[in-house]
């Protein structure tokens, strides 16, 4: 879509767009270019000499057990966060769509986690599930579950999944509720007259109509789990115990800043960039076109 009527000026548009382009250039294209460049280099341990090594860093990554492990962790983590988060919020949203009185109150409570910083979310859940003094640890012990996410790898992963889902419920809930409210009531009434019960109506009418929203949210949740959960993990488990919660983004940071392995870190950055570009592409291409009714 284009404007028919525009202003004439040679210089002004450049002045207007300059701040954005300068900041994007300096803090975006320059670093992204650097990452790409560094991924083809190898630095010796003292940072004295740099050699061009071609694809060596990438090939090394493919043979690096811990990297492949991190890929697996990321896959499990992000799918778990997306599926759990989406089902919980869809369930709550269908209930909220049903009630009239007091729905504002529920909504207010349910959107609060969105505003809490991911790092604080990590701290809160770590506190609730702290092996020595956590309130939930105590409750779990009462039903016979021994909780220690500092020792048990599965529990470590569970901790960050729960924290990540908790934070993302708000976002999913808002979009599902908006999606539900935009479904024409006449459709549901018609099904109701035809004798479809509540469950049948949900699976045969409401859920298919929500597909675009669900698909969109799935992609958003994947991106969220891939990148925005860094702070949750760093504030709670720090990638541990062992490497149980070391997702790809965490590994980039860890190898780059703690391990000071620039080449490997840059190569990982490049791989991540490719993944984000693929996800964004997916979002734009398919969300808009394929899943429309």
């Amino acid at each position, binding site marked *: 879509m284009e404007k028919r009527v525009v202003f004439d000026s*040679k210089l002004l548009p*450049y002045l207007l767009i300059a701040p954005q382009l300068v900041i994007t250039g300096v*803090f*975006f294209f320059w670093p992204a270019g650097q990452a790409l460049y560094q991924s083809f280099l190898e630095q010796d341990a003292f940072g004295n000499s740099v050699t061009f090594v071609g694809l060596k860093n990438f090939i090394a990554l493919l043979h690096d057990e811990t990297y492949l492990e991190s890929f697996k962790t990321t896959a499990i983590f992000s799918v778990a966060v997306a599926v759990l988060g989406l089902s919980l919020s869809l369930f709550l949203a269908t209930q909220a769509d049903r009630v009239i009185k007091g729905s504002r109150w529920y909504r207010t*409570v349910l*959107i609060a986690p969105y505003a809490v910083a991911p790092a604080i979310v990590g701290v*809160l859940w770590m506190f609730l599930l702290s092996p020595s003094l956590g309130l939930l640890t105590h409750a779990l012990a009462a039903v016979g579950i021994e909780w220690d996410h500092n020792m048990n790898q599965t529990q470590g992963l569970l901790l960050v999944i729960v924290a990540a889902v908790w934070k993302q419920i708000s976002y999913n809930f808002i979009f599902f509720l908006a999606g539900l409210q935009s479904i024409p009531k006449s459709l549901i009434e018609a099904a109701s007259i035809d004798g479809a019960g509540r469950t049948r109506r949900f699976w045969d009418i409401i859920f298919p109509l929500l597909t675009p929203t669900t698909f969109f949210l799935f992609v958003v949740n994947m991106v969220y789990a891939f990148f925005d959960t860094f702070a949750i993990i760093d*504030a709670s488990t720090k990638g541990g115990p062992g490497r149980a919660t070391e997702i790809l983004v965490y590994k980039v940071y860890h190898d780059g800043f703690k391990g000071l392995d620039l080449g490997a870190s*840059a190569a990982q950055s490049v791989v991540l960039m490719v993944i984000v570009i693929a996800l964004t592409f997916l979002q734009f291409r398919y969300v808009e076109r394929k899943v429309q009714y």
Partner: protein
Amino acid sequence: MIENRPLSTFFAHLILCVGAAMVALPLYVTFVASTLTPEQVLQSPMPMLPGSEMVENYKKVLFEGGAGQTAQVGKMMVNSLITALVIAIGKIVISMLSAFAIVYFRFPGRTLAFWLIFVTLMLPVEVRILPTYQVISDLKLLDSYYGLTVPLIASATATFLFRQFFLTVPDELVEAAKIDGAGPMRFFKDVLLPLSKTNIAALFVILFIYGWNQYLWPLLITTQESMYTVVIGIKRMISGGDAGTEWNLVMATAMLALMPPVLVVVLMQKWFVKGLVDSEK
């Protein structure tokens, strides 16, 4: 309402109550812990009702600094506020201007500029963190408000939002402005700006939260306590491990850190929901 079934409405309320309670639990526990003495927090289980130390704890972290930390949380809150405001306002200003240029002018390189901005949508800071850090350190921007804010100001999302909105503004308004002899900046100031008010408000809520909650970036570029944002302050407080941590003070700081964005969301709920839905279009 399709059917009126009191029982199922009752269950819906029940489920929502349980859901809301589960969502609110971590926040409630944080609040309770922030009002207790250190000994009470270390009890297992800790009390579920607020204690008597609320004023004490908050006064302590705000003005004296606590939990093994000399920096005052008050100062950190100021840093967070500055960061959040500069990022939110800065993003809105530069993205409005660039959207205005892209929509209302024809100039060589316009499509290229559009794509250059579009690409940034795809790469979060986390991905290019190390090279960005090197750029900031080359520019000597570590431990400064510039370093905290400017790299995060470029935003494709906001530019797109304004672009979409400007495209819906009727062309007749531009024609009328031109006939009346108004130049582009006059048109921007007197027509577009007032029309964009709701979009600006909605975007402000989202961006304020985004800025306030930044973590990885400030973590890397602030080394002096005086430049910490409050989110970073908490992280530094707990790095000592379970035993040495004064949880009541950490939780008081957590409350202080999460209250401003939560209040913004709750009080400006309408704008928040609009902003969220719009910025994803």
